[in-house]
């Protein structure tokens, strides 16, 4: 941890909001992106990532500088996202941009939208869009492994700290998550092939 960051943490612990905002500035985009990949839509991503940051702000007094702030930050973010996802599945809100899961697999809800929404403009690439859909459909711990490793580029040891798991477990979880995602992609491609034939 560099001394600048340490200084900001100490100021934040005294309750200085400005220092806190400076401190999290470089991480908040990462938090938002993890939440987006995990929850699948921008509204929830915004809400969950902000909720996580507020939690961090309120509990920063208890941060002991023993671990790195970065991994601690993302630990709270990942946990908040998982909680959010569970809470959401209990509430059963209808999300227009979320896939429907049924016995025959899952598919996107189709609703006509005459205008180009912001998401459509940002996500131009059809490939990454479907990939995004697949990830948010995976079981949460595997989705999180893929997001942290391949989308956000965390190292195994960082992931170990974030997820509070031994590195060996991280390793096998990533491997399993990749095989799972690979199979999902393969299955969906087959289905598409059948449709086009």
């Amino acid at each position, binding site marked *: 941890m560099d001394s600048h960051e340490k200084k900001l943490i100490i100021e934040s612990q*005294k309750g200085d909001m400005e220092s806190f905002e400076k401190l999290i500035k470089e991480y908040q*985009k990462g938090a938002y992106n993890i939440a987006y990949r995990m929850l699948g839509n921008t509204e929830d991503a915004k809400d969950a990532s902000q909720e996580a940051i*507020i939690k961090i702000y*309120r509990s920063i007094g208890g941060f002991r500088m023993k671990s790195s702030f970065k991994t601690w930050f993302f630990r709270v973010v990942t946990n908040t996202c998982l909680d959010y996802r569970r809470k959401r599945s209990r509430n059963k809100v209808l999300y227009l941009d979320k896939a429907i899961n049924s016995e025959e697999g899952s598919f996107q809800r189709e609703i006509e939208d005459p205008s180009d929404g912001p998401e459509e403009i940002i996500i131009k690439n059809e490939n990454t869009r479907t990939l995004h859909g697949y990830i948010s459909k995976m079981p949460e711990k595997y989705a999180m492994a893929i997001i942290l490793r*391949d989308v956000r580029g965390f190292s*195994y040891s960082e992931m170990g700290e974030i997820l509070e798991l031994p590195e060996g477990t991280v*390793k*096998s979880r990533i491997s399993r998550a990749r095989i799972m995602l690979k199979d999902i992609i393969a299955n969906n491609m087959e289905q598409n092939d059948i449709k086009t034939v």
Partner: protein
Amino acid sequence: MNCEYDKTKISAYIDGEASAEEMRETEEHIKSCAECRAFYEELVDMKEMLFEMEEMDLPEGYEDELHKRLSSSFGMNKAKKNYNWKRWTAVAAIFLVGFVSYNVWKPAGLMMKSAEDGMAGESMEMSIAAEPRMTNRAIMEEQGYGDKSEATAYESEESPDTFNVEGRKIIRNGYINLEVDSFEAAHEEIVYLTESSGGFIQNSSTGKRYYNGPENENTLLVGSLNLRIPEKSFMDVYNKIKELGEVSDSSIGGSDITFQYNDISSQIDNLNVQEARLREIMEKAENVEELLQVERELNRVRTEIDRMTGMIKNWDNLVNYSTINVQLTEIAPKSTEIEGFEGEFWEKAKREFVKSINRVIIISQGLFVWLIAVLPFVFIIGAFAIVAVVILKKRRKRK
């Protein structure tokens, strides 16, 4: 898959996270085993695809919203407990000394009039409120309201009547983001305002928002209302709602559909003429085939008329009933309402508290002038104080 080779090793190999020995082993295996090579390549492709997923930018206003949410959670910040009490006691002592000596000395020219209290309070509130309002306006300008297609954005205070341009069809909508002390009271008031203006509530949603798990005492409510207000009372209701709490965000927009409206209206007129003519032709039809042909054409015209009339009706509805979206956020913790006390009691206490604060501000202004005036004396008193502190400390040490 037939090969028994540990797939975890291949995955770790891709990330370069395996031990040197394992790296070498996996590399050798991939070279020799076609199946694992295919697996490896698939994973690499997938990893590349994942890597290419675009990073999302933070949505507009993300940091502002976060800032607001952080500020409102500030009261609950545990770090606050670590305040240096000594420092605060010192500050309090200075105020106490100032207050007492002020009341004793009451120097001329600093006379306090109760009428001034209210004024000072008002101007203070105004300076606080002025800032967000300014930024709102700046944002509105930045976003380029008043585009060619989007007719106009009006600032409420300046031109409440500009909307009622004779004969023009303007769909108006407003947005208010309101921070309120009591969600229920504000909600009720908005419902009342809407209904008494002859409007109706199109959508309404309420939810709890948690700061830290579902602890009931910290639960604040958030909600949104979608109001439809008769066009003539739009401005009135809009302004009244703004008064219900601290406005953190507001905007008014309108789109002028006069052109499209007139266009469709004249198309309907034309179609009506066409319909009448077709009916005439139908009467004159001599054989079944002709009759059927005319009927088909008539059917098409009729459908078209219905569709356009529907559009006009929808527009009329949108023009006659303006839309106001209200976002309500409760900010004060509910624990301020302690059972057993009358509501008025707290209101009074609050008022008195605010009054006292205003008084403190006026006093401290006077105190500052006075302090400079008595600076020489302060030095002497200070010297005494230091001596006193030294003596006190020595005594403590002895204990």
